[in-house]
């Protein structure tokens, strides 16, 4: 490097004097990024404010009790009634059906992939499940209405052409990949030494999985279920398309029911004169929906944090 040493040095020193821009950038960037990060909080606040302001207006006209205990939802026409129970039952029943499909199948899929499948099978199956998870819900809605419903109706003649069963099932199928991949993560996080410990006692793979691995991963698995329920509760297009819009207060899954989300679509896409109770009801329902899913998400986070496996 002979005597060239010092040239670059000099240039660097030179530049340093004019490098005030770097200093400014260095000061501005963290603040800018902070503002950006705060946008996510503003989004939540925005949702809350949007929903709350109109919800408050709603509860000025309809009492809290009437809304949450009313079994009749008749937002239009003669003597309108705003009981949210039909929507709640619709939502809960469709989610329950979805979970009946998604939990066992998703969990079994997870167990298969995590405990039984060879690396090769896993490599093929997982991307396919990812595709399944990536299909737009509108496509599933179409599928529920034009494929699943006719099949179900040939099996259950009393089934209405729009019913909560078919979208419930399809929603379940849609959620399978989510349950499967989150549960598989939880199962995969159980250390191999647990499997070895159990196998060394002469346990079969099933006994290892069912009595050791699944219990050990249970918090992650349950968290995946809760997230899946939350997803089902918030799902919109499948039920909108395939479950019709009857505001029945019923537990008969062969009937058409409306979910909270489908109600929102119906009201926003339909007759909702601003300032009318109907219009406000949209926000009250959305608020209920938001609180529901928020609670579910918080529960899921709580479970997976609190009961983080200790092995």
């Amino acid at each position, binding site marked *: 490097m002979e005597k060239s040493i010092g040239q670059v040095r000099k240039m660097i020193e030179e530049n340093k004097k004019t490098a005030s821009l770097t200093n400014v950038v260095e000061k501005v960037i963290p603040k800018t990024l902070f503002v950006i990060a705060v946008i996510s909080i503003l989004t939540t606040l925005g949702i809350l404010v949007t929903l709350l302001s109109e919800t408050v207006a709603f509860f000025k006209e309809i009492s809290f009790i009437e809304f949450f205990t009313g079994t009749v939802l008749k937002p239009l026409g003669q003597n309108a009634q705003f009981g949210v129970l039909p929507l709640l039952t619709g939502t809960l029943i469709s989610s329950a059906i979805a979970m009946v499909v998604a939990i066992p199948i998703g969990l079994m899929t997870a167990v298969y992939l995590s405990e039984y499948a060879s690396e090769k099978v896993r490599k093929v199956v997982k991307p396919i499940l990812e595709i399944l998870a990536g299909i737009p819900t509108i496509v599933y809605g179409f599928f529920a209405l034009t494929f699943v419903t006719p099949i179900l109706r040939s099996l259950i003649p009393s089934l209405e052409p729009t019913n909560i069963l078919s979208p419930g099932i399809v929603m379940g199928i849609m959620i399978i990949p989510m349950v499967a991949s989150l549960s598989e993560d939880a199962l995969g996080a159980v250390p191999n030494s647990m499997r070895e*410990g159990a196998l060394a006692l002469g346990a079969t793979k099933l006994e290892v999985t069912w009595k050791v691995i699944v*219990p050990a991963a249970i918090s992650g698995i349950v968290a995946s279920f809760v997230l899946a329920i939350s997803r089902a509760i918030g799902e919109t297009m499948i039920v909108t398309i395939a479950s019709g819009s009857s505001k029945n207060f019923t537990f008969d899954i062969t009937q058409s029911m409306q979910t909270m989300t489908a109600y929102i679509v119906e009201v926003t896409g339909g007759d909702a004169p601003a300032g009318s109770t109907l219009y406000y009801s949209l926000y009250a329902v959305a608020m209920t929906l938001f609180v529901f899913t928020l609670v579910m998400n918080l529960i899921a986070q709580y479970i997976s944090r609190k009961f983080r496996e200790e092995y």
Partner: protein
Amino acid sequence: MKGMKRMAVMTKVKKNFVSPANIGTLEPAQKSKKVAFQTKELNLWYGEDHALKNINLDIFENEVTAIIGPSGCGKSTFIKTLNRMVELIPVVKISGDILYREKSILNKSYKVEDLRTRVGMVFQKPNPFPKSIYENIAYGPKIHGIRNKKILDEIVEKSLRGAAIWDEVKDRLHENAYGLSGGQQQRICIARCLAIEPDVILMDEPTSALDPISTLKIEELVQELKKDFSIIIVTHNMQQAARISDKTAFFLNGEVIEFDATDKIFSTPSDKRTEDYITGRFG
């Protein structure tokens, strides 16, 4: 029969290192013992990697057999072959044979679950299940079909006593096993193993993750267990091998270099490499 088995020991290992003479020093009492495991020309590959080479060993019942050797020499691989835990690794290929009580265990008709109820295993890192102490011990009996609560209670107590930990945990049987110290956890794992009443217990460096006091307790326990079980223990700790084992096998690069009474190995090893290893010159 006994004679034959003794003759078989190591005959295939490179002749110049181990000769039948090495075995001549076995004490008379041991001559009447039954052979638990007998490996015949056992070879094992992890894919291309030849991890066990022509292993011919006889392991006797109601003895403590120590396996020593430098890291990577195949000790764990060897004892995991004895209860076929190696099979969990997909790339493993095995040739040769292993007889357990004279039956080939590599035979597909020998159910691996059956083998493992006879041949228990304790691992390097304590690995209790994330369940209560009670459930940890009762797990084995339960999967093998014992449902009776009273019998289970008895088994749990007996096993915990057997693993010399009953007094420490009897008041907290229903607490999570992960609340215990490492040494206690390891004894829980031993108790869990005892609960299914195996004939043989394999131990893979059972004390390497433990503090000296816990180590001592487990060593004492091994001495105690020897009365009822055959024990095969892998250890890095030369002193430990010398203290607790009756026989010692020295492994190097997947081969058995020397297999003999522990006293003999540690006082007058036949092979230069055994001596080098024991005196800490390598490994």
